[in-house]
């Protein structure tokens, strides 16, 4: 009896699916896609990949600002301190004689002269032309160009891998493996793509998956 009722339910569902295919399929597609909601989003993965590869555009902005501010500071600044200590000793011996040539006495005079000098020398240099035109902006601009190319490569690659992985995941759901070998092959493919994303994000991706309670490998 229970089996018969079950058969009716399945037949009714099949009929509904035939009558309203878009509704039935759309719901199913939504459910499948929703099963990955707890995984990092593609935007988060892109951001992680950019940060890991050091291609975050904010860094370039920082370079520009620092390059402009740098010329407000002196191009060169020097400070010298000199200390000079000079001792000079002078000795003067004076003998007193009488008319007979007898020595009456003597005076020994010694002078000790000490000079100390402390000298502070400071020198600051500006290249005022750099306040008007800073050649560093050219270097930064050139770097912006090359970083843009690299960033585009990283973004394209990580996005493609992300969706290749998502397609592989959906393939497991939509076309369940027929045997152990097939299952292993499909799971390995997902793991391989996970590892690719990990390589581009410094293992951030798998750590996020672990935090969400999923086993990445």
């Amino acid at each position, binding site marked *: 009896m229970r089996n018969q009722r079950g058969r009716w339910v399945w037949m009714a569902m099949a009929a509904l699916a035939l009558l309203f*295919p*878009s509704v039935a*399929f*759309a719901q199913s*597609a939504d459910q*499948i*896609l929703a099963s990955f909601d707890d995984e990092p989003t*593609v*935007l988060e993965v*892109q951001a992680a990949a950019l940060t890991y590869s050091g291609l975050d*555009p904010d860094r*370039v*902005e920082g370079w*520009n600002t620092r390059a402009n501010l740098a010329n407000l500071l002196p191009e*060169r600044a020097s400070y010298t301190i000199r200390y000079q200590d000079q001792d000079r000793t002078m000795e003067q011996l004076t*003998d007193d004689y009488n008319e007979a040539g007898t*020595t*009456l*006495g*003597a*005076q*020994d*005079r*010694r*002078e*000790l*002269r*000490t*000079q*100390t*000098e*402390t*000298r*502070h*020398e*400071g*020198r*600051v*240099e*500006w*290249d*005022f*032309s750099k*306040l*008007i*035109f800073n050649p560093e902006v*050219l270097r930064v*601009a*050139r770097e*912006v*160009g090359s970083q*843009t*190319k690299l*960033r*585009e490569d990283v*973004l*394209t690659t990580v*996005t493609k891998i*992300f969706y290749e992985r998502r397609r592989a995941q959906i393939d497991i759901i*939509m076309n369940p493996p027929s045997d152990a070998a097939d299952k292993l092959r499909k799971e390995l493919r997902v793991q391989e793509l996970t590892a690719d994303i990990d390589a581009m994000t410094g293992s951030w991706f798998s750590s996020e998956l672990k935090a969400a309670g999923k086993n990445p490998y």
Partner: protein
Amino acid sequence: MLLLIGLVWQAHATAQEGADAPPLSELLWLDHSASLLGTGVNAVVVAPDDPLRLYAAGRGYVAGSKDGGATWGPLLLLAGNEFQDEDQTLIEVHEDDLQTFEDTDAEAQFESLREEYFDEFTQRYGETLATELMLDIEDDLRDEAYADLIDLASEAGNERDYLDRLNRLLTAGFSEEEATRLASDPLAVWSLVIEVDAPKIVYAATGRGLYRSIDRGTRWERLISGLGPDGDGVLSVRAADQGKTILAGTTRGLLVSTDAGRTWSRSLGAVSSEPIREVIRVDARGRFFAMGSRGIFRTDDTGTTWTTLVPTGFDVADATAMLSPAGWGDSLFVTTPKGVHRSDDGGGTWAKLSGSGLASSGLLQVLPVDGVDKLIAITEGDVYASTDGGDNWFTASAGLVGQDLRWIAVGPTGELWLGSSSGLLKGLAGEAAAIQAESIRRLREIWAEEPSIAQVVGAGLIYHGLEDTPVDGWHEALFFSKFAPQGWVTLDYRQRRYDNEYVTWVFPNRDSDRTLDTISRQQRRTNYQNPQTNDELLGPPSNLEWQVFATWDLGRMLYDPASTTIENVGAQLRKTRQKLVGRIVRLLIKRRALQLRVVSTGELAVERHIEFQLELEEMTALLDGLTGGYYSKAASSYRAEDLLFNDDVEETARESLASIDTEGENE
């Protein structure tokens, strides 16, 4: 207007569409604009040997399709590198133009317009059309800044030659209005031609000269240059003998080549200085006719000598087009604002077609569709059709809203193509076409809510720090920096201290012991001088000296190596920008093409649905990556199922068809 709209139809659907001529009485025009075509189509031509191979041209471009209008790609871009090199002008997107809609005055303008007109529109046209009108206004406002920018850049680049061109055209005999129109747009493509005896050769008559491709549009060469004071803007072109003989109607007369474009000679006589607006070839006798502003001319010896025809019944100066349709023998048609005139004797005598229902003025073109009975004609605003050889006409303008019509073409199997100010339209008939048209209309509504291409490109450039390549600013700063010195300041501070000690031993007699007791000690400290010796002053106890130096490198005034570096860096950045912009635009077009594929597909199986959804997400994610997340924040229709329009699209489409029938009955 929308700069680029990507349209992709499934190839099989298109093939089915293009198979037969649609019944003229049920004609419905469906937008087939794609990519550059959205900027307007001046000319359309279908390859005579392949109905699926189409060419369309508008301002600055020739585009081609190999699949009956399903997909389009640019074949010739007149505003490409060549243009930039010659005119030293670059059309660049600047930060000011990249603000989002919400940040600009456009939003305020739109809101005030909405308040002012929406109710009025709703009462007059109904809510659906009112909404559509408001969306169009919004779209225009949104892209206003970008359009202005392109206009400014074009003006800047062309100003130098503008007066030259204008003077030449005025001297050549054009009216001021027409001369201004022609002179202001050197990028315009005025005509596209493929001759039946050489279907692989495509000619493009443009303001920049005559271009030819001998491999169906893959590679192009310029046969006549329209640049410089001696240049000839080409208005019309025809060829014979498999491309060996070419006649080009230019702004300064008619040029003829009999060696496939290697050498050119200027035709003498009446056509020598006349601007030639139209050149046609009458196949039966190999004759050519040319139409200028002062007359119609005929040559029987490939342009060596010309006979001036004097038509009766109309003024040649008013003529808008001249044609000799295939299948109509030697018949020659000339359209004027007052009607169509036909000559069956090589221009000797003329008769006005007396079709009822045809527009009494403003006719641009008349073409046979199928044999001699079915005819189609256009004015700027309407399409007219006749199924009885032109005796009776009816309007066939369903689907045309607000665009200026410019060109109509009939393919070898009777399919109809219409070039207009808003793009390319295809003439279709039946319910399926109506449903498709309604779906497209809704999709365009979705696109109207999405950020414009200029905005997305702008967001991408800002995100990558490429919104500005201030080469001119760098050069300016470098120039002024040469006057600024290298300078330094020195400070010298000295602190001194003198300690002098004097010790004197006094010995009462020579032999007495020198003991300490006898010592008298003097110790003086002074900062300035030795009081005993009155030595020279050695300096104050402290002093501060400072000096300022400035030096100039006078050699920099003549040559500064940084100037070449600026050029190099500028070129590199422009290249990077161009690549980035190209990538973003391609992605946007692909994304829109995918949306269209979803719309065209209709019902989706679950696998296909997921496939579409993932593809859509992937493209959105790539756009997000390139714009720092701007795109998904601003774009709608993220979900594939939002594009299915299953609710009432068929009903609305049927209503449209019913309204066409009603209009037909009223006619």
